[in-house]
């Protein structure tokens, strides 16, 4: 499939409150094209709650429920039950939550909804920080990254959310990136057709949060995949498939670019390069990525 096959319909209207160069709106446009009009979005506290813009106007052309940070999974289960009572089974219920609302604050409600077998799609758009409140660290922030709460660089590595979700043994788990719109579109389309809980995590490189110029959003996502920092995969009925370049990295046919190529373009990692190169932390980051691929090969090779 090519970009020409993507529908022209727009469900996110121009003139929203998003920052220029926002990756979340790129993702939302692609995701909503795949979902179509018959969709109810559940949005906890996150950047998207701002992107909706001011009352009494909304930049979304689909019904959307704002809910407390920790409650999106529970709210989705409630909506699915209500629709069932009304005899409607043609509507997609989709949670669109940030990494803070998924990795940290919303994890128990999400886990609950997966365990209940709620028929919905949970999409986590991961910008690796709490960007809505002004760039604080989250459970998804990479090692060494500057945030307003990790001034010298984060000392811990992020959680492997994919593995946590896979452990729920739900029918569909996938990762995607806004820089690969066809891949993201196909994954959402596929998730739409499957019954039961589905989880898709989308990497969304945030210009103000990661400290890079706003015209490089897409490039930054592409580099994250090419350096192997962000794997693209689909986990369906307990079968793992890697997609695109990630597949080539997994099979050893493509030597992933050094993570340095991705790190040095971002201001949040600038303390690793100046005034003096921090060889130790760069190596530790590189090893973390190597170990991740090694784990994948051991488990799914």
């Amino acid at each position, binding site marked *: 499939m090519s*970009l*020409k096959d*993507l529908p*022209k319909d*727009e469900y*996110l*209207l*121009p*003139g*929203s*409150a*998003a920052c*220029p*160069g*926002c*990756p979340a*709106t*790129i993702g939302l*446009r*692609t995701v909503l094209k795949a979902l179509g009009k018959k969709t109810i979005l559940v949005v906890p506290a996150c950047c998207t709650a701002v992107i*909706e*813009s*001011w*009352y*009494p*106007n*909304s*930049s*979304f*052309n689909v019904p959307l429920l704002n809910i407390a940070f920790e409650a999106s999974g529970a709210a989705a289960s409630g909506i699915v039950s209500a629709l069932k009572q009304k005899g409607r089974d043609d509507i997609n219920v989709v949670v669109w939550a940030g990494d803070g609302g998924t990795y940290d604050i919303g994890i128990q409600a999400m886990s609950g909804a997966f365990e209940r077998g709620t028929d919905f799609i949970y999409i986590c758009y991961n910008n690796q920080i709490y960007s809505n409140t002004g760039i604080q660290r989250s459970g998804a922030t990479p090692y060494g990254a500057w945030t307003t709460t990790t001034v010298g660089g984060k000392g811990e590595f992020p959680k492997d959310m994919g593995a946590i979700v896979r452990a729920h043994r739900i029918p569909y788990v996938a990762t995607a990136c806004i820089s690969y*719109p066809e891949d993201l579109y196909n994954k959402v389309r596929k998730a739409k057709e499957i019954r039961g809980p589905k989880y898709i995590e989308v990497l969304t490189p945030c210009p103000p949060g990661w400290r890079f*110029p*706003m*015209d*490089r*959003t*897409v*490039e930054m996502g592409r580099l994250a995949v090419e350096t192997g920092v962000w794997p693209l995969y689909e986990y369906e009925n307990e079968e793992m498939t890697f997609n695109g370049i990630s597949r080539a990295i997994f099979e050893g046919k493509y030597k992933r670019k050094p993570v340095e190529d991705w790190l040095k373009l971002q201001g949040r990692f600038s303390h690793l390069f100046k005034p003096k190169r921090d060889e130790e932390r760069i190596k530790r980051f590189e090893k973390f990525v190597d170990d991740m691929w090694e784990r994948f090969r051991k488990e799914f090779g």
Partner: protein
Amino acid sequence: MKKYDVVTTLSYPKTGAMGKTGTWRIFRPILNKDKCVKCLRCWIFCPEGAIIRKEDDSVEIDYDYCKGCGICARECKVKAITMEREE
């Protein structure tokens, strides 16, 4: 548009919910239609949906809402879009 009679705060869809966001722009994308190969990369990567896709897959820029991020110019493979400082 259908209005709903409910006892909660309810917002309704509106293009330009934050007004004409084109006023945020510092750099203006200029499209050279002769160079354009209709690959639609600018259209899909525009965060604002400010690139209008026509029937024949040619594109046009909606300057009312374009915030001037420059992603279209950077992602264009044939360099049909250039960024110029606003007057």
